[in-house]
């Protein structure tokens, strides 16, 4: 008796809720379609939780881009308005957020969130609604193996391709200078491992023997034993698939064991301004791939750096740049196709345009394959005279590539 009564009340509430939400989405959906007023862009970002630091960086980049566009007459003559939600770094939350943005808020466009873990569920929602999905972070191979045809990664290269310029340089060295053995240590993380293994595969193909291949969990606090293995192997080069603290701890542990490689490359950490403060003078010669530097000479980059620096008092870093790039990519498609609304036909035109065109951005010209993978490689930076400088490729270099690396 009670069960059926509860059931009836439940059904009534559900029906009421459905009617109500139908009305809501109907009304806002209509207002999004009119082609007048500001262009609404829906975004979900990890503003709290694990990814809050980079998440806030992406937010600053998006907001700076929107301000810049609005100052310069908007997009298709309309102002842009960002609608940013906080997904708390939670993969379930991020999917709900994009459902809400598309269904209830009736946004005209969406921009991607931060990190591989959040990009995949978010891209799935965008795919279901036929939305174009350009994302500023999510460099791991698995993002492009999900079969999305609406996704574009707004950065020069995926993790596996970060070291391509370095691999070319190493294989082009004269035989007597070429390293013969290599040691790899990578964090158990798709991005960090991707960078190291991308280089490993290319060097192995070129005949450079792998003598150590260590994987460690993200919570590793002691790097003495990993360093002992690498030092014992006497590898000519050491490559770290690292985030930040692991690279710093590993470098110090290697120095403590008196290990002196000819070449040392670590992802992410060396580009962090805190890195030279932690390592001191011993940074000389350390290599790192980077997707962005404020010094890069790409045409729109100077404008971006000036605008951003004026707004925030400091230069942008990679997170801000990738967010700005996302804006540039979507804006290029919107201007070329001439529409910005949630209509699947318009969204499909935007997707098709990006598949067939190259876009000039602050990280260089970008084009994509059919899975949305960018077709470039990262710049290679190296510490030269205590400062991190671009050394590869030759066209954009600020200093000469140092090999072998000075002792640390």
């Amino acid at each position, binding site marked *: 008796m009670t069960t059926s009564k509860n059931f009836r009340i439940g059904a009534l509430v559900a029906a009421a809720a459905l009617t109500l939400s139908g009305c809501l989405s109907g009304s806002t959906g209509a207002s999004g379609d009119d082609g007048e007023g500001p262009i609404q862009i829906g975004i979900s970002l990890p503003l709290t939780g694990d990814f*809050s*630091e980079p998440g806030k960086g992406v937010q600053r980049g998006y907001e700076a881009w929107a301000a810049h566009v609005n100052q310069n007459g908007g997009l298709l003559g309309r102002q842009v308005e960002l609608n940013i939600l906080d997904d708390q770094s939670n993969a379930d939350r991020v999917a709900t957020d994009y459902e809400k943005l598309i269904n209830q808020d009736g946004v005209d466009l969406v921009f991607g969130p931060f990190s591989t873990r959040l990009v995949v569920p978010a891209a799935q929602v965008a795919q279901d609604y036929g939305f174009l999905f350009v994302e500023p972070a999510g460099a791991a191979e698995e993002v492009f193996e999900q079969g999305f045809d609406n996704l574009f990664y707004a950065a020069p290269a995926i993790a596996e391709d970060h070291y391509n310029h370095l691999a070319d340089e190493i294989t082009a060295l004269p035989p007597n200078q070429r390293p013969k053995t290599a040691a790899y240590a990578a964090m*158990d993380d798709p991005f960090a491992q991707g960078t190291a293994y991308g280089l490993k595969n290319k060097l192995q193909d070129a005949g450079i023997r792998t003598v150590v291949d*260590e*994987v*460690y*969990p993200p*919570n*590793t*606090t*002691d790097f*003495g*034993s*990993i360093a*002992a*293995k690498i*030092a*014992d192997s006497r590898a000519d080069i050491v490559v770290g698939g690292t985030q*930040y*603290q692991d690279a*710093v*701890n590993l470098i*110090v*542990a290697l*120095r*403590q*064991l*008196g290990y002196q490689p000819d070449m040392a490359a670590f992802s992410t950490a060396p580009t962090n301004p*805190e890195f030279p*403060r*932690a*390592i*001191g003078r*011993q940074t000389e010669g350390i290599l790192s791939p980077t997707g962005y530097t404020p010094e890069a000479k790409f045409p729109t980059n100077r404008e971006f750096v000036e605008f951003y620096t004026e707004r925030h008092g400091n230069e942008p870093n990679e997170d801000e740049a990738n967010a700005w790039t996302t804006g540039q990519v979507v804006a290029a498609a919107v201007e070329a196709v001439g529409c910005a609304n949630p209509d699947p036909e318009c969204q499909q035109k935007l997707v098709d345009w990006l598949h067939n065109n190259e876009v000039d951005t602050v990280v260089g010209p970008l084009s994509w394959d059919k899975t949305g993978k960018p077709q470039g490689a990262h710049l290679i930076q190296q510490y030269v005279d205590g400062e991190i400088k671009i050394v590869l490729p030759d066209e954009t270099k600020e200093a000469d590539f140092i090999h072998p690396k000075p002792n*640390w």
Partner: protein
Amino acid sequence: MTGSLLLQSLVLGVLLGGLYALLAAGLTLYFGVMRVVMIAHSAFLILAAYLAWYFSQQTGLDPLLSLVFTVPLFFGVGVVMQRLLISRLRPATLTMMSVLLTFSVALVIEGTLGFLFGGTHRRIQLPYAGTSFEIFGANIALVKLIAFGLAAIALAGLYVLLKFTPLGQALRATIQHPEAAQLVGINTDRVAGYGFGLGLATAAIGGTALALDSTIYPSLHWHWIGPLMAIIVVGGLGSIPGAAIAAMALGLGQSLLQIPLGTTWAQTFFYLALFATLMLHPQGFFGDRLAQRF
């Protein structure tokens, strides 16, 4: 595997074991004296590490000098924390509730560190960070040796204090039988406060030792509390020599197992040791006898 790698791993294992012993000493003391499970111990370690970093950042002096301030400060904080917070928990549910209470303290410390210093990972830049000397082909890093020395001094000091001073006798009496201790006129409440203060004082030393050779950030303490808990359970809750021996055994085991198994599996060694202890010898391998005597 070469002989030199084995020797190097042995050396690293002993140094690591010494650090583990220092970091775990306070944790086992709280439990021994008051049956308190102190989740915030590792958070206090990180707090001390941050204070050492901040001290050397501001003054340009060696971070070891910060011990002059942090050890008395932490002792005082420990006494106050025990008197104001821990002693208010009902004795019947003390162990359970202390987990919740100290968990919240850990969150407060982490949040405060994040608020004051940001989430940026910090490391003290020491002129001797990479200095090492060689013995029989194995390198011994100076910073690791200093940390080991701090551990040895702190643990020896704790041992002498507990063994040969009136306060130590009162503490041990409180560990062994609180009611009997009260009957012979020991103010067990006050003694418990001092015990807690002593535990936190070891955290000040341990945190400084940690800061010498690692990169620190506010949430780092979550990576430490698990292994430290495993050490004190294996060693026998409440036994400082037990914790020291277990720390040495686990540190060495981890370091040596890393050669054939790699880092991921070597870490599980701690938890396997924990499971085995709880299954075969739940009171820990030294808790029974040594805790009584010590």
